[in-house]
């Protein structure tokens, strides 16, 4: 049971990291990224390739750095295009990464993938505690990233980002460097996605291209929507809820003999879909929405406008 829970903790941590990253890019800065899975895969493969020669920590840092770099390039690429084209560019990027990983067998092992990826701290503890240590590491990573991003979002940089998201013309008119802000936000998110990929590689110790399907992107968007766009607390809650729903439904068939595997498969995904639809109808701002300050928070006497 403990090992199963640690698995869930690691998987929630991975999806929380991906979600937090998307929450900077899309939640705070309004930049749609449909290529999330590409960055995660890139992070995972960089880690898998560099961890044996360099050790896990440099490999993880390299994964984050590479993803940040590529995010920067992508953000600049879309500079001449209208905002929404970033979404299309990122879809393309995700596909390019997938196809490269699958076909450049000399580097990535192609469809066979990469096995025996070394884990952090593996020499410090016995084998049975290996998973526990990784779960603790995953939690620490999420805590670190969360603190960092939360500080960032509350800083003047974060406020400027939200201003750009809500109305870039106004922000530009106020002298904010709109493009630079966007590139920075996109790169930050990219780096965190790289970290999530690294954690994925450490946990599974075997990666192949079929693990990086667009469902990762979909779950990231679901987590952000469920938690409340722009809210990091909400995101953690959203990522946890989605994973809990997915895994909890596994036990339905053990508890009720009438539900068999085939029905459950359909039921599980159906339930998630239903949950999201209900959520959007009943609570479109998310479960723990981003705190929005209104004019009357500062001027209680001033009625009417906001």
């Amino acid at each position: 049971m403990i090992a199963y829970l640690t698995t869930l903790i690691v998987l929630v941590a991975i999806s929380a990291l991906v979600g937090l990253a998307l929450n900077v890019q899309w939640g705070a800065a309004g930049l749609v990224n449909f290529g999330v899975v590409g960055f995660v895969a890139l992070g995972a493969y960089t880690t898998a390739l560099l961890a044996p020669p360099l050790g896990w920590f440099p490999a993880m840092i390299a994964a984050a750095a590479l993803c940040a770099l590529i995010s920067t390039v992508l953000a600049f690429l879309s500079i001449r295009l209208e905002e929404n084209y970033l979404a299309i560019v990122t879809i393309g990027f995700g596909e390019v990464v997938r196809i490269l990983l699958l076909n450049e067998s000399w580097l990535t092992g192609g469809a066979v993938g990469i096995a025996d990826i070394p884990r952090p701290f593996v020499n410090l503890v016995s084998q049975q505690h290996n998973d526990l240590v990784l779960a603790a590491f995953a939690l620490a990573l999420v805590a670190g990233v969360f603190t960092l991003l939360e500080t960032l979002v509350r800083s003047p940089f974060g406020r400027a980002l939200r201003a750009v998201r809500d109305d870039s013309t106004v922000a530009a008119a106020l002298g904010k460097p709109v493009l630079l802000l966007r590139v920075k936000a996109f790169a930050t998110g990219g780096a965190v996605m790289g970290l999530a990929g690294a954690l994925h590689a450490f946990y599974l110790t075997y990666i192949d291209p079929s693990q990086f399907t667009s469902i990762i992107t979909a779950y990231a968007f679901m987590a952000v929507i469920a938690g409340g766009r722009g809210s990091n607390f909400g995101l953690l809650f959203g990522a946890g809820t989605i994973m809990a729903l997915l895994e909890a439904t596994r036990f339905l068939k053990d508890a009720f003999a009438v539900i068999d595997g085939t029905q459950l498969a359909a039921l599980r995904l159906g339930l998630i879909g239903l949950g999201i639809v209900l959520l959007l109808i009943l609570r479109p701002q998310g479960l723990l929405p981003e705190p929005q300050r209104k004019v009357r928070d500062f001027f209680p006497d001033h009625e009417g406008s906001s």
Partner: protein
Amino acid sequence: MMDSTINRRHLLAGLGAASLAGLAGKPALAQAAEIPIGMVLPFSGATGPYGPDMKKAADLVVKIINDGGGILGGRKLHLYIEDSETNPTVGVTATRKLLDVNKVELVGGFWGSPIALAAKPLILAANKVEMVSASANGITDGDTKGLIYRFQAKSSQWGPVGAKVMTSLKLKKVTVLAQQNPFVISMIEPFKAEMARLGGQVMDVIQYNPDQASYRAEVEKAFGPEPDGVFCLSLLTDFVAISKEVYRGGFKSKVLGLGTGADADGAYLKSVTPEVAEGIHHLQPAPPMDSAAYKKFVKLMGAPEGTAFLFAGNTHDQVCVTALAMEHAKTQEAAVWVKSIREVCNPPGEEVDDILKALEMVRAGKKINFVGAGATVDFDERGDQLNRSFLHQVIENGKNKIVEVLT
């Protein structure tokens, strides 16, 4: 105050409660004597169609064993089945759940190499047995601690058989059109080597990515130079698209496909019109269809005589072999009974295909050579299956016709 509607919170709470009940209640309710075994099977995603029959076969044989008095002195098997969703990450959580929550001694099933490969480190770390119905060489490569058994032909065994079929169809100049996946790519080199040995020539090897929207470019490239034959190493969805593309283009080269694409337990013929399928040859590791064991199995599944179950026999055999090995080793301890597998499966010994009779003979201390429904279930020291026969069929008038059985 009563709230008459079910809102989201209640739904979530209910789900949570249900899962907790599942977590907490199950081990307490279960008889202490039950022996938990598990399988990871696909019920959704690209390979979803294979899961239900594999589950049915395993469930049926578990029931037979339990109704016949169980094993290890009257203990019953409890089979837990999880959905892999054709996704390695999901396969890993499913395996984790089976290992840690249900405490299974065996994680079987495993249609599809990526999932079997991703689950392998977990199962080995837990010192439990992994039985797969997947082909990639990597599964039994490396240090397996002797815990992995393959109930399927290895990829590298498929290639030479393909070359033999090509030769018997008198196709000399051939092209390979292959999907990028670990199951298929380890077939290519052995195929080329065998073709060269038999005096044929492989003109080109074209690889494509799974889940493409269109395969027109690849089909044009493979069939354009008009080779005598094209060896299509595909799975179901891509083979459906490819064969339609070939029909549309009016190409004349003979097509040799894999059973995973051109048959898929009959799913292929349901997906295309008879004109598209006409004349396509395909091969696959097949159950010994003429054996008494297989005929009994078809009857057990309630299917008409002569039905080819490609994978269902494998899960049936996985359960049988597990039960027999446990009975032979007189323990449910995975690391111990795994050593008994070759004792009860390989010759020498009295051949027996009835699981209850086989169990009785093992109890009586007789040396048996169990014969399964999906294969004769003999294994080499790496856990790879021996003596897999292959079935070469051709599609005529919308029906599969057996050409020959190759070994």
